[in-house]
């Protein structure tokens, strides 16, 4: 589900670190801006970027799945129960939608929508290998990046394996329903092969890694190139400057 979509847009070609920095700055700005219009503009900008990368439809579908319950919850809670200064936006029978609550709901919703959309855009437009290499180029230990990316890739694999083992044991007559005792025994008959398989798999992977010189010290080269262009540097610094500006502005308004 959360998989890289190949493409050749500007976004795909950017250095993964640039994308992380910009996404982080956008998310933090969304939380710093006091009014719902600021986050709305940021959200539109994120979606425009998604459109440029050709990922708009996919991101909207995935974000909708996550956000729809939040949307309803926030609007019911804030819109109907937060009166604020008592200005009504809409009144239908006994139900009143308050202006203040409605605006607050919009603010909360846009902030969370920015997080979801920016993260999705980053994940869908970044090849995991590029992320690993970009981090390694920055001096992050290859061991750490390996563990991070490997555990992400193993998770769906583990789920499939658990399902397969359960079905295999059921085909041999395992009963997963019934008394507590039965269920505990059933879980054990599923867990043992799952863990033994995982341990053997870990060992196989370790051998494959060592055969490629994983533990070797010294400089490394990579088959894939992840360039850090001037565009990347400019974008990173611009994002940080804008973020610093927003922070300073908020501190000043807060002090006044």
């Amino acid at each position, binding site marked *: 589900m959360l998989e890289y979509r190949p493409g050749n847009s500007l976004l795909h070609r950017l250095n993964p670190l640039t994308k992380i920095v910009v996404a982080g700055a956008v998310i933090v700005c969304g939380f710093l801006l006091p009014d719902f219009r600021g986050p709305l503009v940021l959200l539109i900008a994120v979606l425009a970027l998604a459109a440029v990368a050709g990922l708009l439809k996919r991101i909207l579908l995935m974000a909708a799945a996550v956000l729809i319950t939040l949307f309803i919850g926030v609007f019911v809670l804030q819109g109907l129960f937060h009166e604020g200064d008592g200005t009504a936006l809409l009144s239908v029978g006994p139900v009143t939608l308050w202006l203040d609550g409605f605006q607050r709901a919009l603010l909360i919703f846009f902030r969370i929508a920015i997080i979801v959309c920016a*993260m999705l855009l980053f994940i869908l437009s970044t090849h995991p290998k590029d992320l690993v290499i970009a981090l390694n180029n920055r001096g992050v230990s290859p061991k750490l990046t390996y*563990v*991070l990316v490997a555990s992400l890739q193993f*998770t769906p694999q583990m*789920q499939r394996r658990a399902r397969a083992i359960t079905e295999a044991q059921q085909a041999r007559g395992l009963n997963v329903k019934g008394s507590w005792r039965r269920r505990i025994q059933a879980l054990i008959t599923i867990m043992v092969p*799952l863990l033994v398989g*995982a*341990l053997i798999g870990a060992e196989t992977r370790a051998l494959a890694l060592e055969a490629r010189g994983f533990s070797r010290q010294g400089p490394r080269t990579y088959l894939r190139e992840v360039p850090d262009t001037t565009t990347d540097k400019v974008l990173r610094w611009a994002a940080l400057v804008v973020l610093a500006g927003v922070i300073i502005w908020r501190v000043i308004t807060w002090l006044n």
Partner: protein
Amino acid sequence: MPQSGQRHRPSSAERSTAAPEQPHARTSRRSWNATDLSLIAVFAALTAAFALIPAIPVGAAGVPVTLQTLAVMLTGVVLGPGRGAAAIGLYVAAGLAGLPIFSGFSGGLGVLAGPTAGYLLAFPLAAALAGWLSTVAIRRARRLQYLLLFLACAAGSILVIHPLGIAGMMLNLNLDPGAALMADIVFLPGDIAKNLIAAAVGVSVHKAFPRLLDR
């Protein structure tokens, strides 16, 4: 199974020559090799996979019953304290960083403000405690290993997970100690069952890979 053969135990001479070459290697007495790292990754993934199995929402505070705690205990029992805590720590860190791998597909720093915060932060410590106790048990005891592993898991859950979980609910939900204890106590029977499973699986796994904790 070359899970931890001689090559994992560098002689002191090897260690002293290797140390100056790796300035940013771990400062502990040995650094993890590819096998250890693969094991950590696999068990972090296992924990995530278990946490995502649909949960039974139990308890007034909305903390779900999942196989997550089973995976935490198993990781400790199978990998020992260091690697176990690293695997669970990796899982918790990845979840807090925003990946939807906590129970109910939640994730992100917002979880820290929710009812499950105490439990999540307790997991790496619990894996370390259960791992340390079971390492001692596997190495020293020839008999009653099942019982000892169960006690190791029970220590992890009763001494670490439940107190920190209760503290988390008291802080985040403004519950008084009694109410938090009542909200927590419903998980105890399930936890005992999960600890029994973890101990049984742990005994089988250590029988199959006798040198897993040999380091």
